[in-house]
């Protein structure tokens, strides 16, 4: 085990996969010498050169399209879209091309592309640099969507993403890059569609995404002191979604809180709540509670930003209201 930063975990995954398979390469804005906005690719250009760690012109649609085209012709690109807010410019290539070309071609196309990006609020970067849009991509058949919450998950999930033969949205969180965690020395992969029970508990189930997993664990620790036992589940990937693990937990607890930063309306929380209800309305003691980003753009001033993005306190409150 070594204790590393989340950004190092991302970098190690990319380095290992690039060493293992020369078809893997990176493209994106300022990922080379500059090392990426959050320094996740720092130093990789020194080992792999500018061909395989490729700075691009400022053109997200072409970045995504070049990734799709090269993925269909024998390479395995990892395209970085600096902020998930900027996928709005590359949406046709991600949603109409990458996600559908295999299907439209009757299964001919292999499109092993990873779109690496990051989401989340908390840095006063305002409405165009702080969204969490995973639900958009989970809505689109043909895309897989991963949301690592720890260095361990970031490395194991990213290696799996790179080896996946279809398009993967790999969504990191801007406030996690400098978080630390234990990662094994020897190689490992984390399969998609297998949720992680981060903490076992018996009173209430909390399903959290991305950085909210950390908030959920804080809340669980606090609630434990009050004798309330919380089970915290991180789905790790929302497409595919490991609903079985979630349902099994709720069968035990009878109570569910879903927590994410994304806007509440039409967010993943609704999908998870609905799938749980479809499978087990009867064992739900109380309605599912959503602890999500408020349905407003993310404001600049910290006092307002903290208000619209939930934290451990809101989770604690929601859990108590379910008891």
């Amino acid at each position, binding site marked *: 085990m070594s204790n590393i930063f989340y950004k190092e975990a991302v970098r190690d995954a990319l380095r290992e996969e690039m060493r293992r398979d020369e078809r893997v390469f990176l493209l994106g804005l300022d990922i080379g010498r500059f090392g990426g906005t959050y320094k996740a690719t720092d130093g990789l250009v020194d080992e792999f050169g500018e061909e395989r760690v490729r700075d691009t012109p400022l053109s997200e*649609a*072409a970045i995504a399209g070049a990734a799709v085209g*090269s993925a269909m012709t024998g390479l395995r690109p990892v395209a970085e879209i600096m902020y998930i807010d900027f996928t709005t410019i590359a949406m046709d*290539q991600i949603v109409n091309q990458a996600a559908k070309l295999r299907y439209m071609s009757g299964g001919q196309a292999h*499109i092993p592309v990873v779109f690496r990006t990051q989401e989340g609020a908390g840095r006063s970067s305002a409405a165009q640099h702080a969204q969490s849009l995973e639900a958009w991509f989970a809505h689109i058949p043909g895309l897989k969507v991963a949301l690592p919450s720890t260095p361990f998950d970031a490395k194991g999930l990213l290696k799996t993403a790179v080896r996946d033969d279809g398009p993967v949205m790999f969504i990191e969180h801007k406030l996690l890059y400098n978080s630390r965690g234990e990662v094994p020395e020897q190689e490992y992969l984390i399969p998609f569609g297998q949720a992680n029970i981060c903490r076992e508990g018996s009173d209430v189930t909390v399903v959290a995404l991305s950085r909210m997993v950390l908030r959920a664990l804080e809340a669980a620790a606090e609630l434990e002191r009050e004798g309330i036992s919380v089970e915290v589940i991180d789905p790790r990937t929302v497409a595919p979604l490991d609903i079985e693990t979630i349902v099994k937990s709720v069968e035990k607890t009878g109570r569910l809180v879903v927590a994410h930063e994304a806007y509440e309306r039409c967010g993943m929380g609704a999908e998870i709540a609905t799938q749980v209800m479809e499978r087990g309305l009867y064992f739900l003691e109380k309605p599912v509670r959503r602890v999500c980003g408020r349905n407003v753009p993310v404001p600049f001033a910290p006092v307002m930003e903290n208000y619209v993005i939930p934290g451990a306190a809101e989770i604690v409150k929601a859990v108590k209201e379910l008891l």
Partner: protein
Amino acid sequence: MAGQPVCAAARELSAPTPDLMRSIHLTMVRIRRFEERAVELFMAQELPGFLHSCLGQEAVPAGACAALRDTDYITSTHRGHGHVIAKGLRLDRMMAELYGRTTGYCKGKGGSMHIADFSKGILGANGIVGGGIPIAAGAALSAKMRQSGQVSVAFFGDGAASQGSFHESVNMAAVWALPAIFVCENNQYAVSTHGSRQRVIPDVAARAAGYGIPGVTVDGNDPLAVYAAMVEAVERARGGHGPSFVECRTYKWLGHYVGDPGKYRPAEEVAQWKAADPLPRYERELAARGVLSPEESELVHAQVAREIEEAVEFARLSPHPKPEDALEDVVA
């Protein structure tokens, strides 16, 4: 402007062998007859969905793809039958796709707008105007990184040149000196919108200078002019000197889609272009060059006519997909 003379000269220099001239002719006839038949079948309501015909534009794909290898890549458009026929597809499996049958190139999942055959370097026609251009750039990037010697061609229309994806892709290909060729089929309209309301400049090729790459405008109804321009572009690409822009002036005979009366186009304009039918024009040239006699040309037409009827038979007799087949081929 934009190099017309250059190409008139090059046209002779790089004139293809008699065999190649004949195969270009064969390609044009195959496209022509396939499109004519597809239109009939569509009007007879045998084909689902909608259809964008490239009747009248046959010289562009025929001339362009004659300069390519089997292993080279192309991306195509909603008006893509000509491109994929010229790149070597079988008419029966194409027809089967138009019918939505399991024997079609896409097993009935794609239809007219999405025909693809990766074994022939055809990365897919595309329903999104401009959607195929970045993909072609990506295939060129792949060819360059794999040092495969392949080139990648993006076919697109004059309307598509107004899309941001066009700008981003051509610029990126130029910066990276990719083996890409951007072939603009300028048929002067995007649905009802004439080129003069699409841009101020007459020639789309004039934009090439803004990316620092060569751009030419050629007579798109002259397959040998298209071929000559493509030979230049392919050499440049394979030689590692980067992308080129080739604008081909042509015209589509029918409206935007089959069923569109195309009232927005002056009747005389349409008549003129039909009178200047690229196929007989090319046949006259081949006869004059002693490459293909009228009689031989007749044989080609007859042979293709049979091929078409066999293709229709094949399609009609092919099985429909099962409903549940719709659930396959979503993820790898």
